C-alpha cells in the first residue's frame, strides 16, 4: 500500500537524537562547532550549563557551574544541532524536508562529529525520531474532532487536554513509542492541539554506523503508521488541500 503524503503536513519540528554509551569531555565537544563547515552554517550558539549548589558547614554554599554542551542554530533558525556529552541531536524546525533528506543530513553531521573527536569509536545505544505536529482548531472544533485519541469526560467543566501514552512497538529491533497530546497556541495558526510522536529504538550493535542509520530509516514507517492512526478523516482532509 502506498504511503499517504499530505500536501500540507502539520509538522512543526522534527528531532533526530543519537545516544551513545561513552561520556565525552566538554573540551572535546568544542571541536565540532569549530569545523568550518559547521561554524559557517550554524552561526548562533547557546551554551548549556547547570549549577550544583553544595552546603558547607559554617560557610556560604558553594556553586559549581558545569558546562554540559551547546545548542547550535543556523541564521533562519530552521536547523539546530544539540551536542551533549552523551547524545547528539538534529532538529528541523518550521520547514518541511523529506525524511530521507533529513536522515542523510543527520548522517553527514554525525560523521563530521566523529571526525572532530579524532574518530573515537562511539557505541550508539539508542536512536529516536520525534515528529511534533500542530493541528489547528477551527471554530467549534474540539480535540476529539481532530484526533482519534479521545479525551472525553462526563464532567461539565472544560478540561485542558494533556495526554501522554507510551507503549512498545513490535519492530525489529523493538522500539518504544511515546505520544503526547496537549492543547497549544502558535502565532499564525492560533489555537490547536500538539500531536507529539516519539519513536525510540535501543541499538545493540551500535558500532555499525551503516546499520544504525538503516534502523533510523525504518522508524519512518512506524511514525507514519502512528500518525495516520492518530488523526481523524477531518484532519486528513484539512492538511491534504
Amino acid at each position, binding site marked *: 500500500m502506498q504511503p499517504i503524503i499530505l500536501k500540507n503536513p502539520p509538522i512543526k519540528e522534527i528531532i533526530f537524537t543519537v545516544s*551513545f554509551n561513552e561520556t565525552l569531555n566538554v573540551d572535546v565537544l568544542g571541536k565540532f562547532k569549530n569545523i568550518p563547515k559547521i561554524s559557517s552554517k550554524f552561526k548562533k550558539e547557546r551554551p548549556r550549563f547547570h549549577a550544583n549548589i553544595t552546603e558547607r558547614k559554617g560557610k556560604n554554599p558553594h556553586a559549581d557551574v558545569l558546562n554540559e554542551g551547546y545548542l547550535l542554530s543556523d541564521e533562519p533558525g530552521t536547523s539546530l544541532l544539540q551536542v551533549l556529552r552523551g547524545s547528539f541531536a538534529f532538529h528541523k524546525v518550521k520547514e518541511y524536508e523529506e525524511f530521507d533528506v533529513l536522515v542523510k543530513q543527520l548522517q553527514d553531521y554525525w560523521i563530521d562529529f566523529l571526525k572532530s573527536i579524532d574518530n573515537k569509536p562511539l557505541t550508539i545505544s539508542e536512536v529516536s525520531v520525534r515528529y511534533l505536529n500542530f493541528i489547528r482548531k477551527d471554530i467549534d472544533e474540539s480535540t476529539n474532532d481532530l484526533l482519534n485519541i479521545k479525551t472525553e*469526560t462526563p464532567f461539565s467543566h472544560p478540561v485542558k487536554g494533556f495526554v501522554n501514552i507510551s507503549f512498545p512497538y513490535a519492530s525489529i529491533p523493538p522500539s518504544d513509542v511515546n505520544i503526547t497530546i496537549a492543547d497549544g497556541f502558535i502565532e499564525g495558526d492560533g489555537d490547536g492541539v500538539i500531536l507529539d510522536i516519539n519513536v525510540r529504538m535501543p541499538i545493540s550493535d551500535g558500532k555499525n554506523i551503516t546499520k544504525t542509520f538503516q534502523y533510523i530509516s525504518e522508524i519512518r514507517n512506524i511514525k507514519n503508521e502512528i500518525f495516520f492512526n492518530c488523526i481523524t478523516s477531518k484532519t486528513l482532509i484539512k492538511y491534504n488541500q
Partner: protein
Amino acid sequence: MYHFKNFNQIQPMNISFDHVIRKEQALQSNVFRDEYQKYLDDSSLYSFTTFQFDDIQGMLDSILLKCKTLTSFQKDTLNKLFIQFDNIRQSIDPNRLKKFDFHFNNEDELLLYRNTENGLTNIIIDNEDLISYSFIPKKDENSNSRTLLFYDAEGDFESLAYKFFANN
C-alpha cells in the same frame, strides 16, 4: 500466635526514571518548550492527565521515606549518587537513566541493583563506611567482565554512577 514480619526486611522496590526522561524530552522541543513548560508550571490547569513528573530529588526522597533506619553514611552516599544521576540527566543523556530496584537487608545494608539480560549490577552501601560495586555477567563467555570494586566516602561517584547504568 502471630508471627510478625521482620520490618527491616522491606520488600524490593523499584525506581523508574521514565517520567524524568519524558520531561526532559518534552522540554527538548525548540517550538513547544514554552507550551509544555506552562503545564509544568501550573498544575491547577484542568487537564486530563496532569503533567506532573517525578524529579530526581523526589526519587531520592522516596527511598529515604521507605528505608527509615539508614545511617548518616548511607544517606550521604545516596545523596552523592543522586547528584551524579542528576548530572547524567542534565549533562550527558537522560536516556542513560535506567530503572533500578532497591532493598534494605537484615544486615542493615542498602542494596541498589539492576537485573538485566546482560547480568546483575549491584551497589551495596554498608552502614558504616564501605560501598561496593559488582557486576556479574549472565553469559559465561562474558566472565572476564565480572567486576568487584570498593569505594569510600571520598570515592569517584561520577564513575560509579556511569558503571551502575552501563551493561544494559
